[in-house]
């Protein structure tokens, strides 16, 4: 079973973070929330594995 990766796994973290914040630029609070929801669903689909997704849900709590 694949486990949820909690060690650093993003090659260029500063680039990713800047892109993430930039993606929200100009959005209202409501639009940002909706954007985040879509983003989570897209990433969840990419992960696929239900055990990993449950582990992620628990980690975020």
């Amino acid at each position, binding site marked *: 079973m694949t486990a949820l990766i909690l060690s650093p796994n993003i090659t260029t973290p500063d680039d990713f*973070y800047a892109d993430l*914040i930039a993606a*929200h630029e100009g959005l209202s*609070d409501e639009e940002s929330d909706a954007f*985040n929801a879509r983003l989570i669903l897209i990433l969840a689909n990419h992960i696929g594995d239900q055990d990993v997704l449950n582990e992620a849900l628990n980690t975020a709590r």
Partner: protein
Amino acid sequence: MVQDRYALAFKLYPYQQSPDQTAETPARHPVVVVGGGPIGLAMALDLGRQGVPVVVLDDHEGIGMGSRAICFAKRTLEIAERYGCSGPMLEKGVIWNVGKVFQDDRQVFEFNLLPEEGHANPAFINLQQPYFEKFIFEQIQAEQAKGAPVEVRGKNRLDSIETHTDCTVLTVTTPDGPYTLEADWVIGCDGASSPLREMMGLEFDGRVFQDSFLIADIRMKSDEFPTERWFWFEPHFKSGASTLLHRQPDDVWRVDFQIGWDADRAEEMKEENIRKRLDAMFGDDVEYDMVWSSIYTFQCRRLEKFRHNRVIFAGDAAHQVSPFGARGANSGMQDVDNLGWKLGMVIKGQAPATLLDSYDDERIYGADENILNSTRSTDFITPKSEISHTFRNAVLKLAERHAFARPLVNSGRLSVPCVYDTSPLNGPDELPGGPAQSRVGSPCKDAPVKDGFLLQSLGDEFVLLSINAEMSDLPEVDGIPLRHVTISTDDDPSGALSERYLGTAASAVYLIRPDQHVAARWPSFDPTKVSAALLKICGKD
């Protein structure tokens, strides 16, 4: 009149009348440096050591009060070592490695700069800027005593500049009135608000950050705080939206409070109000004296070009960054390091003036890297939207327990030297198995060799470094001296040299520039290839 704009920490170069002031025709100088801050003085020192006559114009008679820049990086210390003045900096400076990041009343994580073994200089020292400048000035005096043609003119304020194709004409005001002098080259090192830049009508655009910071330097006898960089996001003591605590020499601590864009400067600068913030942070029973305080706002911006024919800008006059990451003075020193040998060669007729365009290529590349990094740190520290704030705090929360979030925490990405990956001066990178860390364009990494260190043996000429490679004589190329440094891996007991310069290669030949950046590398010595690479650097190919 030349009015003082600030109080002095050290009066070092009192006004003296120069013969230029009464000359019938304006005196002509090869180089005039405008501004006697750390970058201007270092520029003069670099050129003076090469025997190039330099006049520094400064509108004060010494070094201004206030700690200002306090973090000096390894690369800066390596440059200072080459200039002969790193000794007193290391002796006076505070060496630190550990940083802690807090949010509210919780520690988010701790980092250690974990300095790699086998370097003569530490990763960072903290040292008040006036000391840094004073040590450079004292080295200028030592060089003057040996005949270096450097002159620092106090209370000489540049008032106007006329630029011509073949020279510049400067009007300077002194306590004895104005005079005119001419210069082949003018180096603008007159700081972030550069009057020279204004006189030339050059645009200096970029991003303004809508926040202000209050610096309080305090003297405190306390064993409670270790020599570490402590950074709080949204601290529980509520003295600022973020707060930084960092030790300097003389039992002085730098405290930096983020106080918001709308802060009332006059009100915030009152000692009683600064003490309120400090007491909330330290508790009422900690005794301290106020040493210096200041409120600053900042921008990230640069000139479109640093070289404007015969006028060249360096340091804050050319580019400005936010203070997070210690990328101000440290990048200015890299400007000097880059420009010094190039200008020296042009003035001595060893290279065409077009070589100076590579200063623009390389240092604009460096400035953009610094602006990018310091902008990102600033965006993390002072989130500019609600969602950015939410993500920031989510990162901090997760970083407490999960390693993956820690690389996302950005309280400043500390200054590392620029690798000139795209420089037009770069020669062939033809060492199969050679490590990426010493690729062409990178600054040479130090390593212990024989009884000393590699960088000390490189000095500030063009060097051909051979490791386990057969060499034959090539003392100069087209009149440019080339010094050979030959090292065998028998002289590398720690293995650091092999790791940093050989990788999996059995032997290597490195062509190294006077600023100790790698210009080319091969597995063996080929005089034709070395000559071609050297001529390319000097713009003679």
